[in-house]
């Protein structure tokens, strides 16, 4: 018996251990799953679930938890003992323990059923009592209690009167109940049967005295809490048959889960405020974008090889963007600069088109010039303007060549600038050249191509479209082609230079006059007059060659006229003509005779006959040449006594041209005539003369210096006789020397006046219609002048890096324009016919001048 107890206890232990393990395993699982959830972070708001566990729960290690406990269920009871003995103290010996009645079976749980056999005594009794008949009753249900426990059964046995029994009795009863509970399971089965029988009997009794009993029983129930009751609704008078199919209804309450409210707050979703305005332009832009995208897609559909070709040339998007940005920035700067200048020079901007001198109304035949802007380029402070020319295409643009006319202190570099009247403060384009620029010409067909002639004898072609970093587009080959500076270099130190200079008899006027010779391959050639060397005197664009190359011509102090063809990548030079001079061969220092070349100073092409051109020389000759004859001149005229600075054909009559010279005179000539038609004395060396583009009879001249009283007209003049003498002296008086002697001759003039003269032959043949003093500083000289082809504006340059622009008064201009339209050419013809018959002589002109005086 003890053993059985022990076994049971052991069994129980086993089970508890198993239970603990199971629990711990479960707990572990739960923890695991919880951690995974936690790791996901989605449910971190949840309250952690903690498992409740008893305090005395066994702690197991991981290994123990993981250990598998195998359980085998068999039909055979391994604990079965065949012969069980126990020591009997009464008998004083071991006796065999009687075997249980149910054999090897081991009852674990005994449950009392309510079904009874029909043919049993009990059933019969029930039937006799009226149970088993099913029926309905009008009266409400009544409650009856069925006592199941043996304790109550015993209670039942006592008479009803004893219901209010003393507490002692109740205690005794309780003890009895306990005893019964402690009965061995072996005995339980037998007893159960007994109890059943008793219960049945009791129930029968109950049916009789039900009412009295219920109250009492409830009281007892409260005392004995261990016992449980079952409430059965029994309908009275309905005989319920208790058989094996007739079950009692039992209500059971399952474990109810307590309701828990868990609240949580999730993270708020991200928010952003978005607002936009749908303007028409924005919609338009999106449409544009979409259209471009479609185009690009279509482009991509093209076959690959086509695309590859395109990709080769395409730059990266960033590069394109940068370039465009830089371009836009430059444009913005240009415009800003112009706007600022517009504010500054507002009055001039107003004037230059609309200014009208009211006093012109009262002065018949006299006009006026109004100084407008002054263009200066600071880096060229010490340079002189050697040439100015309007751009043929843009009427507000003109080109300026910065060089130096002071040949004793020659500048190292020059500059080519393009100025716009819209921006007087800075040149639009300025490029520093290696050598001072003496002359320039803008190509009429391609207005951004400018050819320049440099002091060192080189010619260059600049493309003003290109940025300043990229230099000239073409430059003449300085070894092979360029004008005779090469002579200097080859002849080197041993070159014998003959320098001659003449002094004017009148001390107040001294003119510089040199001849420079160099020996080159056994011949002495005159390589320069005053000023020196190979300096390019003039460049002029010519007509295109037959095969389409642009050409330009240059003339230089070495007496050569060179044609330059602009070939791709290079300039090709052809010498058109070498000028002769009237000077007989001069014996050199070693006895050889020197052939003296003419020293060209200016060049002018016939506006219609492309092969005819005129050349002015340092010694005052005007040669008419043809490209067809490179040996000889077509015609030579002794035009001036001093270097010819400019020859210019009339815009309206191609037979008439004008020339100016350092001998203070301006002469108008007709082709084929030896004598000039008109002659004007301006009282100081005339730097430049130009016909007006809008009238056949108007020309403007600028003088480099002069004396007072010029505005009276060409009244002051030098005796011709003196002039001849000076010239003779200059040509013949030659001093020999081994080094170049160039003496600057100071010009002593008391009242320096630099002026622009405008003549209209139609109004007054003898007096200028207006004289404008442009600069008054002593050291400045006017060098060049040019009419704007469209606007009534003249530009002239001086030796102090400034370009002054003058506006001819509206009176002059409008009058001229009117005449031009009526009888532009006829007017000049009429004039010419007057002077042609009889042919004028210099003396006659002088007489006329005298009359004017």
């Amino acid at each position, binding site marked *: 018996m003890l053993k059985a107890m022990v076994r049971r206890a052991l069994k129980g232990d086993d089970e508890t251990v198993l239970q603990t393990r199971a629990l711990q395993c479960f707990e572990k699982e739960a923890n695991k799953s919880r951690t995974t959830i936690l790791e996901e972070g989605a449910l971190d708001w949840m309250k952690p679930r903690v498992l409740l566990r008893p305090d005395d729960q066994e702690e197991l290690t991981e290994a123990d938890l993981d250990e598998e406990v195998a359980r085998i269920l068999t039909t055979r009871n391994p604990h079965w003992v065949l012969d069980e003995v126990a020591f009997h103290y009464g008998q004083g010996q071991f006796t065999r323990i009687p075997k249980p009645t149910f054999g090897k079976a081991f009852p674990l749980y005994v449950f009392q059923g309510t079904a009874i056999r029909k043919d049993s005594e009990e059933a019969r009794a029930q039937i006799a009592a009226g149970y088993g008949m099913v029926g309905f009753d009008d009266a409400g249900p009544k409650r009856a209690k069925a006592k199941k426990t043996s304790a109550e059964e015993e209670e039942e046995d006592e008479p009803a009167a004893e219901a209010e029994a003393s507490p002692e009795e109740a205690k005794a009863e309780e003890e009895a109940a306990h005893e019964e509970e402690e009965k061995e399971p072996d005995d339980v089965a037998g007893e159960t049967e007994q109890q059943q029988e008793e219960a049945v009997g009791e129930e029968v009794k109950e049916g009789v005295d039900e009412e009295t009993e219920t109250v009492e029983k409830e009281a007892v129930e409260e005392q004995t809490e261990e016992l449980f009751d079952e409430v059965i609704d029994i309908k009275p008078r309905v005989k319920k048959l208790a058989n094996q199919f007739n079950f009692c209804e039992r209500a059971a309450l399952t474990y109810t889960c307590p309701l828990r409210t868990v609240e949580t707050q999730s993270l708020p979703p991200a928010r952003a405020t978005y607002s936009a305005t749908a*303007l028409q332009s924005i919609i338009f832009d999106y449409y544009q974008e979409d259209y471009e995208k479609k185009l690009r897609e279509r482009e991509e559909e093209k076959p690959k090889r086509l695309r590859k070709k395109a990709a080769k040339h395409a730059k990266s998007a960033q590069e394109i963007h940068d370039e465009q940005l830089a371009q*836009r920035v430059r444009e913005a700067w240009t415009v*800003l*600069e112009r706007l600022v200048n517009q504010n*500054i020079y507002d009055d001039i901007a107003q004037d230059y088109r609309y200014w009208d001198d009211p006093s012109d109304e009262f002065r018949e035949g006299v006009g006026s010039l109004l100084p407008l802007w002054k263009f200066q380029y600071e880096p060229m402070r010490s340079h002189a303007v050697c040439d100015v020319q309007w751009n043929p295409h843009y009427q507000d643009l003109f080109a300026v060549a910065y060089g130096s006319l002071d040949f004793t202190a020659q500048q190292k570099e020059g500059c080519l600038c393009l100025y716009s009247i819209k921006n007087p403060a800075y040149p639009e384009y300025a490029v520093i050249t290696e050598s001072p620029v003496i002359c320039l010409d803008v190509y009429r067909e391609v207005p951004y191509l400018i050819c320049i002639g440099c002091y060192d004898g080189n010619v260059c072609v600049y493309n003003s479209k290109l940025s300043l970093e990229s230099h000239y587009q073409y430059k003449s080959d300085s070894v092979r082609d360029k004008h005779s500076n090469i002579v200097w270099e080859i002849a080197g130190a041993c070159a014998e230079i003959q320098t001659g200079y003449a002094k004017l008899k009148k001390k107040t006027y001294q003119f510089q006059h040199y001849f420079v010779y160099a020996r080159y391959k056994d011949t002495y050639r005159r390589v320069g007059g005053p000023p020196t060397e190979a300096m390019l005197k003039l460049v002029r664009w010519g007509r295109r060659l037959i095969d389409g190359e642009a050409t330009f011509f240059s003339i230089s102090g070495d007496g050569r006229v060179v044609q330059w063809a602009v070939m791709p990548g290079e300039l090709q030079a052809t010498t058109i003509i070498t000028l002769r001079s009237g000077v007989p061969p001069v014996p050199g220092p070693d006895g050889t005779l020197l052939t003296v070349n003419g020293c060209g100073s200016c060049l002018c092409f016939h506006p219609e006959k492309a092969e005819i051109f005129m050349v002015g020389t340092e010694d005052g000759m005007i040669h008419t040449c043809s490209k067809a004859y490179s040996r000889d001149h077509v015609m030579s005229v002794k035009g001036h006594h001093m270097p010819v600075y400019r020859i210019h054909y009339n815009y309206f009559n191609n037979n008439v041209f004008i020339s100016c010279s350092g001998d203070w005179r301006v002469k108008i000539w007709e082709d084929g005539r030896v004598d000039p038609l008109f002659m004007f004395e301006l009282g100081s060396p005339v730097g430049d003369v130009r016909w007006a583009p809008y009238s056949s009879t108007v020309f403007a001249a600028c003088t480099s210096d002069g004396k007072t009283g010029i505005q009276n007209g060409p009244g002051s003049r030098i005796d011709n006789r003196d002039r001849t003498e000076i010239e003779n002296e200059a040509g013949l008086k030659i001093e020999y020397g081994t080094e170049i002697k160039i003496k600057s001759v100071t010009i002593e003039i008391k009242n320096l006046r630099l002026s622009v003269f405008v003549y209209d032959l139609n109004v007054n043949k003898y007096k200028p219609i207006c004289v404008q003093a442009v600069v008054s500083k002593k050291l400045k000289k006017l060098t060049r002048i040019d009419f704007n082809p469209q606007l009534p504006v003249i530009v002239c340059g001086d030796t102090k890096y400034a370009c002054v622009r003058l506006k001819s008064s509206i009176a002059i201009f409008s009058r001229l324009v009117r005449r031009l339209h009526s009888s532009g050419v006829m007017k000049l013809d009429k004039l010419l016919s007057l002077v042609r018959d009889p042919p004028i002589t210099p003396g006659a002109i002088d007489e006329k001048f005298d009359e004017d005086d």
Partner: protein
Amino acid sequence: MANEAEETVKKLAALRGVVGLVIVNGEGIPVKSTLDNHISVQYAGLMSALVQKAKSVVRDLDPTNALTFLRIRSKKSEIIVAPDQDFIMIVVQDPAE
């Protein structure tokens, strides 16, 4: 380019009557200025807004059109603005000088 910019700024600032010059980048920050810092910032901020408005006015009247320049003439000065999508150039000039 940077050198060129430096030179141009110097050139423009030297012109008669020019009070100052501000170059504003696409974000409305003055990147180059000859004015005091706080004035430049003020100009940059105010002008960016005005330019934006002016641009939309021009574009809305005709979407194919575009604003190129802006001149604001005031009693004391003239403000010349060159707007672009990537920059704004502002020149303040006193024309009476």
